[in-house]
């Protein structure tokens, strides 16, 4: 029977000096059900939290702003797979996040429509709905790596990206209900109910494509930090256009040219000109483990892990180099693949104690290959800063320390 050990078969045994202890949790009763009626992570995971970036990770001359006009970063190094837990989803506010009573909140649809509509949150949830998994990335993500590599951790440099399953109602359906004037409609102005009533203009072609009004995030109601009770989801596009705490959609024939689509979120080229409406977050990948600030505890086998995503559709491949970009191999795709969602990749690797430089490179369904920072700089000049989707290199020192390097 199983109780008879195959001692004869056994390979050399490291005679452990001690024998296994029976820990206290196997000898005493645990916590009852409903100890937490809404559960939380184990206290041993207390370091896996959102954080402001390390001051060292901020660009020179960067003036840290008020905490209501700021951001906190997702702890990417500790995450796995496709979904970012709601409690760890990155934060970015322009006037703090409001605590909205859903009974008092409404969505207004007006402008170039036959009927102005007011829709309550309760009623909105009764429309035909969709569930979609999409990443959201702040266009300022990886800013500290623009031109220089100033960040130290993957959380602090790249942690303004997260991914969730969103549930909501397509704009195309709501606009049909309002009777949109398709001949004249060119843009829709989306506006939040937060303090600064964040507003952005979205081309009507995009709005009628895959944009929707979301009310749930990863199965439960939207988090207040992400727009409770309603937000816009503009798949593949920069975070700030996915208007949170959505209160109003005005169909127009003109863009608003709001402060956050002129003064902010536009990209200066090298010739004094700037690009407006660079909405799409291009294909990007980053190795999350090993990553900056980590120390490999010993030589041996490690699974390299990372995330890849593209605002243009599905990730089709990720390549990994462990020699600073000289040679590349195709990584395993270790999660389900959804268009415009985070896709996980893994790559088997031995740390031999010699210096190594790990880089990953995403390729999306359009054939686009993630560029080096220098290639972006060449095309765009040094005044850019948003929309940095360049490759991240991590140097593994002989003592196992991992740090952010330029290649």
């Amino acid at each position, binding site marked *: 029977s199983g109780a008879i050990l195959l001692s004869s078969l056994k390979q050399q045994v490291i005679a452990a000096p001690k024998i296994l202890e029976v820990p206290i949790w196997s000898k005493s009763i645990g916590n009852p059900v409903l100890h937490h009626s809404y559960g939380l992570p184990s206290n041993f995971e207390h370091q896996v939290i959102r954080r402001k970036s390390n001051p060292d990770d901020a660009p020179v001359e960067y003036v840290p702003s008020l905490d209501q006009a700021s951001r906190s970063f997702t702890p990417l190094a500790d995450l796995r797979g496709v979904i970012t837990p709601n409690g760890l989803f990155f934060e970015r506010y322009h006037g703090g996040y409001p605590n909205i009573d859903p009974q008092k909140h409404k969505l207004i649809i007006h402008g170039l429509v036959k009927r102005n509509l007011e829709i309550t949150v309760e009623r909105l949830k009764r429309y035909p709905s969709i569930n979609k998994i999409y990443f959201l990335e702040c266009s300022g993500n990886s800013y500290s790596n623009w031109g220089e590599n100033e960040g130290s951790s993957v959380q602090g440099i790249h942690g303004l990206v997260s991914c969730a399953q969103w549930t909501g109602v397509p704009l195309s359906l709501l606009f049909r209900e309002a009777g949109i004037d398709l001949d004249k409609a060119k843009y829709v102005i989306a506006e939040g109910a937060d303090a600064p009533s964040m*507003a952005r203009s979205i081309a009507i072609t995009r709005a009628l494509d895959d944009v929707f009004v979301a009310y749930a995030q990863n199965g439960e109601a939207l988090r207040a930090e992400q727009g409770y009770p309603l937000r816009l989801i503009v798949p593949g596009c920069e975070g700030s256009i996915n208007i949170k705490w959505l209160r109003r959609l005005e169909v127009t024939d003109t*863009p608003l040219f709001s402060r956050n689509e002129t*003064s902010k979120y536009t990209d200066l080229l090298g010739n004094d000109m*700037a690009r*407006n409406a660079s909405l799409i977050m291009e294909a990007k990948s980053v190795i999350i483990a090993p990553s900056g600030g980590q120390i490999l505890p010993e030589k041996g086998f490690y699974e390299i892990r990372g995330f890849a995503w593209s605002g243009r559709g599905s990730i089709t491949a990720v390549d990994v180099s462990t020699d600073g970009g*000289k040679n590349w191999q195709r990584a395993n795709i270790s999660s389900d693949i959804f268009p415009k969602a985070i896709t996980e990749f893994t790559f088997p690797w031995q740390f031999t104690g010699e210096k190594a430089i790990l880089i990953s490179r995403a390729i999306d369904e359009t054939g686009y290959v993630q560029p080096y920072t220098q290639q972006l700089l060449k*095309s765009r000049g040094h005044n850019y800063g948003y929309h940095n989707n360049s490759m991240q290199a991590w140097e593994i020192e002989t003592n196992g320390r991992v740090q952010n390097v330029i290649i």
Partner: protein
Amino acid sequence: PLLANSCTEQDYCLGIVVSDTYITPWDIDVDPSGHSLPKGSGSYDQGLAIYNQQCIACHGPQGKGGIRMGEKLRPLPQLVNITPLPHKSIGRYWPYATTLFDYIQRAMPFYTPKSLKPDQIYALVAYLLIENNVISKDVILTNENLAEIKMPNRNGFVCDIRPDTFNLACMQDCLTPKDKGFDLGKIVMTDSKSLQADCLLLPE
């Protein structure tokens, strides 16, 4: 109960049809046409007074910037290749004066947004545009003339034409940016207004 007949043209009959008047308090956007500007007017001196009361704590005297607080509201270095990144100031960078009105109306003062009256906002816009050397000091700003102001960087924007890099997925013995002969690609610029559906373009 169902709102009888209120929704005969809606497939799902879940929206309530409301009037334009009903929406007014929320309909605060001011686009470059200036059509939605509220009636009102304001001068530099009026603006200065309000600014020094309600804005200076965060944005500093004359918009020179605070400590850890609001952004600089002054004209700043040329928009050329410099480090650190050039400041996208109102005078140098913003394409429309209506944006300043729209933004202050919706978002400022930071802790008590939407507390300013239209006249106060016109005055603040006048004050800031004058400090930014956009208009002359004696202009009285009103709902009639605000949209007519031509901002210096009015034509400073082009459409997004990404992808602007065309990296190849080299697999073996590849060059890296530090190696001689590595292909960095080229400078990609355009003034096309119609390449991308997302471009922000005023109606012709």
